[in-house]
């Protein structure tokens, strides 16, 4: 029970940061699974069944654009930040830095 609660609190904590994680890696075009791997290597685990729908949503919101690459053996959909996505990303990073400074203060004070 305690473990379940911790799990759900953790996933709630991570959820908000996922968009920033994803946007950060899409300055250059990448396909979904490559992103899962890159984030995984950096210790951010994201399930494909969360990431793929998220990518589509961000594209719908105009933050990402996509293109199918059919030259390789498998057809893959590559995502990349749009100009608008760049602006939003920069703004989010700024907010994140402020937030983490504040958080560190709070947690360090304990």
């Amino acid at each position, binding site marked *: 029970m305690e473990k379940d609660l911790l799990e759900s609190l953790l996933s709630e904590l991570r959820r908000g940061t996922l968009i920033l994680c994803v946007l950060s890696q899409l300055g250059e075009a990448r396909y979904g*699974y490559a992103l899962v791997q890159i984030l995984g290597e950096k210790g951010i685990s994201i399930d*494909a069944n*969360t990431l*793929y*729908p998220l990518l589509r949503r961000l594209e719908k919101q105009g933050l990402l654009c996509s293109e199918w690459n059919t030259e390789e053996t*498998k057809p893959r*959909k590559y995502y990349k930040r749009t100009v608008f996505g760049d602006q*939003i990303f920069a*703004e989010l990073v700024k907010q994140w830095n402020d937030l983490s400074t504040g958080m560190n203060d709070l947690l360090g004070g304990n």
Partner: protein
Amino acid sequence: MNEKDMIARYIYEVTKRVPQETQQEISLELQSLIEDMCTEEGISVEEVLQKLGDPAEFAKRYRGDNNYLIGPDYYDNYLWVIKIAFIGIAISAVISAIIQGITDINGSMDTSSWINFFTNFFTNFLAELFATAINGTCSMVGIVTIIFAVLEWKKVKVSIKPESKWTVDELSKNVTPVKSWTPNSLPPIPDKRAVIRRGDSVFSIIFITVFATLLLLVPQLFGAFHYDGNTLKSIACVFNLKEWDRIAPLLVLTLFICLVDEIIKLVTGYYCKPVMYSSIICNSLQLIGAVILLKFLPFWNPDFAGTLQEIAGITQFSDGDILSYWGTEAFNNMLLAFIFIISFLETGEAIYKTRKYS
């Protein structure tokens, strides 16, 4: 089942649950994802699919929709209207049960002694009470739910909310997120003269519910009951019950439109644009319904006046008697004119009060 089959089945289970225009793309996307995961992680297809999880859950994330029929914005009002509708159903159930019990519409009542009469009365009463309560509850809950589900689906703004409520969608419109709610965005308190009294709406909703339930379940109640002593000899219904299957749906649809209008009024609570538009649209639709019912469908029982004459034993109604116009065009025209006037007054009030006070 081989691996290829398993993949195809999984993809099908996901894509059948997402909008059609995205199905093909999602299918391709999943195909390469599953293959990538197999090769890169060196695990079997079964393990990959296990990892991806329930396809229904996956599809839900793709749809990204709210997983509810009636969301928190409407839930309170929804419960409220359901409660009011229950009052209406309770009233109509009791009315129709009492009448059913006394009049013995089915003609199966044993009136030879008081004990038999009471036993029969209560059997009929209870049977009718339960039947009307159950039927009425099912249909009312259904209708009210449909109305609110449509409001939710179309995101009709019926409640009082600040004009600029921030949503994620605005990310795509503005570079920086708009400051959300500020005290300045509080809407003005509606003018007292524009307020729609809750009591009025509640009364209308109860009335419509009672009327619709009775019309749908026991239309024969609207008629003249002819008694010979204690036994019911005949009922002359004002409506054309032979054609009722054709008439009732349109009649109930018209009442349903009234109900939509009243719910919007109740939820909003004051005259404003949504109320005005709903009033214009609903009243127009009601007028169309009334014209079709009265002009194109055999709405009235043509024998009603005749039967009354027979029962009363008179050969001719006096000149001023409304029954002497029964079944004539003039009768329907008068009624339509009356309905038109009421509708115009109601729409006029909505337009006037919206323009003037809100």
